[in-house]
Every structure is written in structure tokens, then in C-alpha cells.
């Protein structure tokens, strides 16, 4: 009886495969659009999270000011915020990037901030004993020590970026895989929605693996140290 399910409810893999092959250009086009949003949102998260984590860990006062705001941004449901952001920022790529960023950046900030505090106290004293500036101590001691944590944050952030981009496309898009799922389900073209879903999953896995490869290439000692727990 399981094989009697109607196609609109749960299409067979073969049906999904055939439906995908019928419109390869359309799917590829939507994939590229979504990937663009994912990457823009992800890079925005990296660009903002790293300095933010440095600021948080450099001063207790700033940490006290910034942390509650950060936690607040996390308690706001992003799906609820997205339509409001469309009004404020317009129905465009910027809004989608901001939504993606809001979904992805928080774990990255926390991971980087935690990582920056793992450097042994004595090593920081040693740096100070050579009259190292705060900047030198961050660049030469704290950041390298944070690399394993930074990369576990990046791995979480890159998969969340895919989630964020789809959320953004649900409320505000005329292209992209999230948009494609909304329109194809509206017409009960479930096989196409499933192909989009599968592509999104693969996108997440591939991006995650890319971050792992990057870590192994650039910082082999990091990937060996703690990264393997996750990778």
C-alpha cells in the first residue's frame, strides 16, 4: 500500500529524478541564485563575527553591552522578522543577505569568542613581557589558538546560511530554490519541490566539506587537534 501514494504526496525517487531532468536549466538557475545568497550571507557573517568576537573578548564592559543585544537578536524568530525586513530594506538581495546573516552569525560569534579565550594565560603574559601590543597578542597568540574553534563555528555557520537563504526566499524572492519550492508546491508539482530540497541538502553538505578541506589545507594542526570531532 505504501507504493500507492499519490505523486503529489510523496513522489518516488525515479519520478523526482525524471522531473529534475526535464528542467535542468531552471533548477540550475535557481541553485545559482540561492548559492549566491548563501555565500553573501555567510561572508557577511564571517566579516562581522570575527571583529565582533575580538571586541567582546577584549573588554568586559563591551561584552556586557554587546552580549544582551546578541542574545536578543537570537531570540527573535527570523521567519517572523523577514517580512518586516522586506518593508524596511526592500525586496532585494540585501534583505535576503541580512536574513541569512541573522540566522548564521550568532554561533560563529560565540565560537570565535570562546576560541579567543583558550590561549593559556602564561603565554599572554609572555607576549606582554616582550611589550607586545594588544593587537600583536591577538594576531600572534589568541587568533591562532582560536583557529579550531573558529572553524567549528564556520562549519555551523555555513550550514545555517543555507537555512537562512531559504527562509529569506520564502518571504521575498522571484528566484532561488526556496522560491521554487513555494511555487512548485502551490501547483502540486511535488517532484520538483523534492528536487529543490535534495539540491539544498547537497549544497549544505558540500559547503560544510569545503570548510573542512579549507581547514585541513590552511591549518593542518587545527584539523588534527579538535576539528576531527566534527569533520
Amino acid at each position, binding site marked *: 500500500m505504501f507504493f500507492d501514494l499519490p505523486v503529489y504526496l510523496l513522489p518516488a525517487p525515479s519520478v523526482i529524478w525524471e522531473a529534475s531532468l526535464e528542467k535542468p536549466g531552471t533548477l540550475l538557475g535557481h541553485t545559482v541564485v540561492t548559492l549566491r545568497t548563501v555565500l553573501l550571507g555567510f561572508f557577511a557573517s564571517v566579516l562581522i563575527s570575527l571583529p565582533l568576537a575580538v571586541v567582546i573578548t577584549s573588554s568586559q564592559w563591551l561584552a556586557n553591552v554587546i552580549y544582551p543585544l546578541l542574545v536578543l537578536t537570537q531570540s527573535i524568530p527570523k521567519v517572523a522578522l523577514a517580512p518586516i525586513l522586506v518593508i524596511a530594506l526592500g525586496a532585494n538581495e540585501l534583505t535576503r543577505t541580512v536574513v541569512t546573516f541573522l540566522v548564521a552569525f550568532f554561533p560563529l560569534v560565540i565560537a570565535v569568542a570562546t576560541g579567543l579565550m583558550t590561549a593559556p594565560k602564561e603565554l599572554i*603574559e609572555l607576549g*606582554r613581557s*616582550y*611589550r*607586545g601590543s594588544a593587537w*600583536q597578542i591577538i594576531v600572534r597568540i589568541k587568533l*591562532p589558538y582560536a583557529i579550531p574553534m573558529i572553524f567549528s563555528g564556520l562549519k555551523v555557520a555555513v550550514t545555517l546560511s543555507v537555512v537562512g537563504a531559504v527562509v529569506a526566499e520564502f518571504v521575498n524572492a522571484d528566484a532561488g530554490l526556496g522560491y521554487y519550492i513555494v511555487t512548485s508546491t502551490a501547483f502540486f508539482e511535488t517532484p520538483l519541490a523534492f528536487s529543490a530540497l535534495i539540491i539544498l541538502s547537497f549544497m549544505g553538505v558540500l559547503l560544510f566539506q569545503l570548510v573542512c578541506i579549507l581547514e585541513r589545507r590552511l*591549518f593542518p*594542526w587545527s584539523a588534527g587537534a579538535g576539528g576531527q570531532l566534527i569533520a
Partner: protein
Amino acid sequence: MIALRNLSRRFESSDGSVIQALDSVNIEIGRHEFVSLVGPSGCGKSTLLRLIAGLLPPSSGEVEVGGEIVTTPRVDTGLVFQSPTLLPWASIEENLLFPLRMLHRPVDAAARQTASELLELVGLGGCAYKRPSELSGGMQQRAAICRALMHDPETLLMDEPFGALDALTREEMSLELLRICAERPKTVVFVTHSIVEAVLLSDRVVVMSAGPGQVQEIIEIPMPRPRTFSMERKNDFQDRVEHIRGLIFGKPAVA
């Protein structure tokens, strides 16, 4: 060379109470003298070392090194801690060059030559391109001592440098340190928990008492150099060890 005058340091603990870590400490240390600080936990040995290093400001009193009052870390001091604190991602050579990079000094062929000479001196000749994790604890601590010597400091401040090593390595390392100091004379301030180690290595041993941290007595160790383990069997060596033990544990000096 190093003069501590009426040196006091207080800390405020998290419940608001004030802890007197050091109270009116007066010590004068001559050039190229080897001075050990011994005493029970909480007697402020490590605090004293950090005050000399300029890592902590005194609450009152002053630290003078080489005729100057210490207010910030001095570039002519080298620090060694209980743990080697090497950068785990960098080769041993890179770890030795780390002080020069922090000090914005040139990292050139001459610097690498200095590094390899120092490694040779402590028997780590073939380890320049290894990672710290590939070395044993004792070897890592040797590398840490080399790192402290890289910028050729006048003063070496050592905070229980052999405290984390096993007993055999510890003995080996203490003679090694004396050999290094014979080849490249330094003023050494050496914090330790081991009375025997303090007596074996030092020209003078400063015995401290806790709560508040104060100098209890300064003991001269007039044994000839180079020192050897066989000196530990001599009577005056044992007498001094017993005397210090008595000071710390409050028992009669001679049994």
C-alpha cells in the same frame, strides 16, 4: 642590579576582601647572581616574579632593575614558566623566533643562527623543524628556556620551570641550567618548591612565609661552582636544606 624596596602587593578577591600577597619585601640581587625563592604555597613567590618582570604594578614600594624603576615589562628579561607554553602550531625554530617577532627585531639568518646555537647548547640540535607535540616534556621545557634566551636578556625569571617534569628529568635539567648559566652568565631569579633544588642551584636562597608574603630569611650558599650532585651529600649542604625546611615548616633547625 635588581633591588626590591618595601615592595607590597595587595589583591582584591571576588568577595571584596583584600589579600596581602606581599608585604614590605626588601631584596637586593647582584649582577649574574642566582637567587631562588622558596616558601609555602601562597607566599607570593610568583607574584614577586611578576612584579620584577613588570607584568604587575606594585601596590607600594618599588622594583629597580639596572638602575631604572620598573613600570612596564622590560625587554632585557626572559621568562620561563612551569609549563613550556610553546606555540603548538609553530616549529621549535619559529617558537624561538617568537620573542624577536614580538619585539619587532629582524628575523634574519643571524637570528636563525642564534636559535640553532641555543638549541645545540641544550641538546636539541636536530629538533629545529619539529613541532612541540613531537618533543617530550623535558625537551619542550629546554626549548622554552632557549626561547627566553633568544633576545639575550640580562635577567632570567623562572617560575617553577621544572615543576611539571618527572624527578629524573628534573635533576638533569637543573644541572643543564647551571651549565647554560656558566656559558652565558645571567642574573637568575628562580621560584621553586624544591628546597634541594634551590640549595643546589643558588648563590642565595630567599625563604618566604605566607599570609602576608614576607621574606623570612636569606641564606647564603657559599659552595664552589660548578655544582654537582655529589655536593648534596656534604654536611653543610644538608645543614642548609634542614635549616630551610625548619624555617618553612616551623620545626627546629637542627634535629
